[in-house]
């Protein structure tokens, strides 16, 4: 087998699951053990992608997967380079602290490439352009996870907001709603930065409307998240029109749908009207516009008017307007409609809104498989699925990489590799990567940035991780996050002593 020198763009869960599987598949007992090198690049200084900057703070158990990532990172064949932004064209989200590395540099330094950079752009609603009173849910997630892109940006003015309208009924919507409705005294033990908790403690939010264009059977949230909403300590759900909770005759519900319906029929643990805060699921409503305050009907706390078109379901489960409309007075609109990959990533397909792949292998616009180039996770599948689906996909991509790399004979003898290889014919190939590379070599730009302290490695991250946990311990919480300035100062100090 020719050596595999793999560059991975992105260091989120999908990236780590692929790396972990590759490393484990070539253990020290394998004759190919030393023929593998993995260099993982992330434009952020901290690894783990959405596990650090996406998982809701009150779901700490989900983050236990990092123990597996930590274990993979102890393998000397894997190296992590944080703060390195691999760019094919000028980046959409400029990150001043990260070093820009042209994609072409990876082509000449690696034999294999994995695109694992996820879906980092929020989908917007055509009727609701972003403004200071209409923000994507991702901005709030970035705020409460202290994502590097929000450094020095003002927090949401929750002390002035009484009513929040969330557009979209997925789990991100419920995560945001839960953060806004859970007492800060309950949240403070979690991994939530102190400045975020301060804002939450001053919050004036009384009601969160969670608006979806279709009905309860089409909602994207899952039962765990819905149950958590139902069990909120000092919030209750506004009653849902019972006619919406009648299962249509002849409808065959999935297990999840029937359990969702049961939860909705039962309602929240706290009865409506008995709590200081409330929330509602507003089904069959599509926003058509957000009007600014007008002097005649101006309300200080709910100055904006959200127009909603009422919908019904077509036979093929699409939302179709009934012609009826209504309005909702609100203080801020949060759009939570899913995510897409950045159009600047290589082999991006504008129709799919992510990388074009077949069975994990990247395909160019003419349909040719690009030799040695793969994609995994949301960059390859689009933004859907939970950690388990990302893991299954990542393992399959790792098997495909190995199947493509191993000689035929070995491939045939191993079930997993044989099925990953498919029929073995990839058709015409497009080639962009080097055939011969220095296995230990690091691109010159990266070497230079490392010398000036701009790049983090996994050891740096573990030191920061330890320190964040130590700082959290002092405050009686899971961790207290650092931003890059603090982390950099801490690392400089640690390296000197």
């Amino acid at each position, binding site marked *: 087998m020719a050596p595999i020198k793999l560059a991975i763009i992105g260091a989120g869960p999908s990236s780590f699951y692929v790396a972990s599987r590759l490393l484990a598949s070539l253990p020290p007992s394998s004759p190919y053990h030393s023929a593998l090198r993995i260099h993982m690049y992330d434009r952020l200084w901290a690894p783990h992608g959405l596990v650090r900057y996406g998982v809701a703070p009150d779901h700490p158990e989900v983050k236990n997967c990092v123990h597996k990532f930590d274990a993979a990172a102890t393998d000397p064949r894997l190296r992590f380079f944080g703060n390195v932004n691999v760019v094919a064209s000028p980046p959409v989200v400029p990150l001043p602290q990260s070093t820009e590395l042209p994609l072409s540099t990876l082509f000449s330094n690696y034999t294999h490439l994995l695109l694992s950079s996820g879906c980092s752009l929020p989908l917007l609603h055509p009727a609701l352009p972003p403004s200071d009173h209409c923000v994507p849910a991702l901005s709030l997630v970035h705020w409460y996870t202290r994502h590097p892109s929000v450094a020095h940006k003002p927090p949401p003015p929750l002390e002035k907001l009484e009513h929040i309208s969330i557009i979209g009924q997925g789990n991100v919507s419920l995560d945001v709603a839960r953060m806004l409705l859970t007492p800060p005294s309950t949240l403070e033990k979690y991994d939530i930065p102190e400045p975020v908790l301060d804002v939450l403690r001053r919050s004036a939010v009384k009601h969160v409307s969670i608006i979806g264009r279709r009905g309860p059977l089409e909602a994207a949230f*899952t039962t765990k998240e819905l149950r958590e909403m139902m069990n909120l300590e000092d919030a209750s759900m506004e009653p849902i029109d019972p006619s919406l909770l009648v299962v249509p005759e002849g409808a065959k519900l999935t297990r999840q749908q029937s359990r969702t319906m049961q939860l909705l029929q039962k309602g929240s643990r706290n009865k409506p009207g008995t709590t200081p805060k409330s929330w509602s699921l507003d089904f069959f409503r599509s926003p058509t516009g957000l009007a600014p305050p007008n002097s005649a009907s101006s309300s200080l706390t709910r100055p904006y008017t959200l127009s909603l078109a009422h919908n019904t379901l077509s036979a093929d489960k699409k939302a179709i307007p009934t012609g009826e409309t209504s309005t909702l007075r609100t203080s801020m609109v949060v759009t939570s409609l899913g995510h897409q990959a950045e159009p600047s990533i290589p082999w991006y397909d504008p129709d799919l809104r992510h990388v074009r792949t077949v069975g994990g292998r990247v395909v160019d616009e003419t349909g040719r498989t690009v030799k040695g180039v793969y994609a995994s996770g949301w960059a390859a599948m689009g933004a859907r699925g939970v950690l388990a689906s990302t893991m299954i*996909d990542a393992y399959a991509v790792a098997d495909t990489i190995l199947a493509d790399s191993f000689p035929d004979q070995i491939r045939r003898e191993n079930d997993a590799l044989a*099925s990953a290889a498919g029929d073995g014919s990839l058709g015409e190939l497009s080639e962009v990567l080097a055939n011969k590379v220095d296995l230990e070599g690091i691109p010159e730009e990266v070497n230079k940035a490392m010398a000036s302290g701009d790049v983090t490695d996994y050891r740096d991250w573990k030191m920061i991780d*330890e320190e964040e946990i130590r700082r959290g311990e002092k405050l009686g919480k899971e961790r207290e996050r650092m931003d890059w300035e603090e982390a950099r100062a801490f690392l400089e100090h640690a390296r000197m002593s």
Partner: protein
Amino acid sequence: MLHLKSIQTLPETCRRATTSLSLSHVASRSFSRQTIASTRTHRSLDRCRTEWTRHHTRHNLLTSSLSPLYRQSTCRRSLHSTAAPQHGPITRPAPGTGIKVHFKDSKGNLIKTVEANEGDDILSIAHEYDIDLEGACEGSVACSTCHVIVDPEHYDLLPEPEDDENDMLDMAFGLTDTSRLGCQVKLARGLDGITATLPSATRNMFVDGKKPTHH
């Protein structure tokens, strides 16, 4: 056991917290096995909402290979409300004395038959015997990666899954009528001969290429 008794005289909320904390820290295998029937350690203190706290014996096999620095960090984490309890590995019973568990692959082929002790859960057993069963959330009922299909005869002997396990099973791939999370299936004497089949995990779930987005 004395330790447990003293805990039981504490007020309810306090006892839950203490039980869970003490299990996270001092649980030795013998202690935990004796108390397993009455103790189910849950993932975080505030979620210990029943008097039975759930006890996950999931040993993080990975941490044993980590540097002391890493291990320290995971131990520290378990001091707080966050991580699943980190316990030692399960102990294998003397051959011929344990409860037999058959692991099968998704095609129904036997992977291996192993023996384990009362109270051990399927996920921990799989890890002890190098069966390829993931446990991404380490037994804290926050993912569905340890999904197994239990043979119907033994499935009927198991206590009903709780809401949180059902919520995760909703999202499991290849769900069947006898699906469970491996971390929640605890061995009892009556379960001798139980079969745990790993579900098929293929990327066929994801249709490559065109798939309309909903937005």
